[in-house]
């Protein structure tokens, strides 16, 4: 059933975007975190997406996936930490300041995160629309034969 497949693909997009939203939330929350278990300030994280391979499971499912190699869902392949340098500010009273009074802050840029957040939202909405469209088509198909 191709329309169900469309819904499946779109929902893989939704979960990937949700995951991205989690990462953005984590970045924004840790905007001022100067100490992490590794000893350095929080590093900005970002998701890496890739086209999903046909999932395992029943033979029919894998076969279907191979037949429809063209239309693929998406998955989060990795969550990477940013290698960007930490900005330094002069705050001699800060508990994490070094000898010369500088504090290394997380390499999170709030504007960048908010931009990403808006994009994630749009992507999520687009996925929802695809699902709604497929659902309507399915419903109408069922109604035709009533």
């Amino acid at each position, binding site marked *: 059933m191709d329309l169900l*497949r469309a819904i499946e693909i779109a929902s893989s*997009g939704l979960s990937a975007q949700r995951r991205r939203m989690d990462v953005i939330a984590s970045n924004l929350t840790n905007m001022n975190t100067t100490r992490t278990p590794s000893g350095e300030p929080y590093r900005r994280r970002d998701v890496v997406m890739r*086209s999903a391979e046909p999932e395992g499971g029943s033979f029919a499912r894998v076969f279907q996936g191979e037949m429809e*190699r063209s239309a*693929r869902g*998406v998955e989060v392949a990795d969550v990477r930490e940013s290698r960007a340098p930490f900005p330094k500010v002069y705050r001699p009273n800060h508990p994490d300041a070094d000898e010369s009074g500088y504090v290394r802050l997380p390499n999170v840029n709030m504007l960048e995160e908010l931009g990403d957040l808006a994009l994630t939202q749009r992507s999520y909405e687009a*996925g929802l*629309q695809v699902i709604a469209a*497929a659902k309507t088509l399915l419903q109408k198909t069922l109604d035709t034969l009533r």
Partner: protein
Amino acid sequence: MRDKTEISAASARLSRAKPAGQGPSKSAASKAKAAPAAPRPAAGTPDANIAVGELLSELRRALGEGAKRMAGLFDDAASALRAVLDLSARRQGVIAANVANKDTPGYRAKDVDFASELRAAIDGGADRVTLSRTAQGHIAPAAGAATLDPAVVEREGAPFRPDGNTVDIDREMLSLGENAMAYNAALQLLAKKIALLRYAVGDGGNR
């Protein structure tokens, strides 16, 4: 209609092979139901056994064909509509994949060449790859599984993005609506056809 003649041809072959005195062969339709459970003719008549096997495989083929052509029950227009529904359902999947992969680096936006695929589907798809059974032991392909996926092409004129992704979300949303509209149109026409059939079956206007 073709399926029915196939069935009756097969059952005629069986009744020929049957030993005399087993009663007249039933109608083709009741035969179709009874066939899987039909008692085998007396052992020791190899001809009859072959005929039953042949009948079964013929029946299976005819039934599979029948299911595949459910829309063909009506006429050519209905099977063309079926092709439209099929294609737009697949296109929906391709668009869904594009939207889902909106942020995948290196992903190339894809699309189904609707016009040429539809033409191929209506013309009977001479250039399409189909699964066929060349021996009795082969598994019968499921209805509708006989043709491979429609050719999926990469979208042209896609905007350039540094990460190599070519999905234009506005365009995808436009295609989504366009595709849904095509699907709806075909569906409505098919509904009319069914309504017409119902009207004929239901004693015209005297219901």
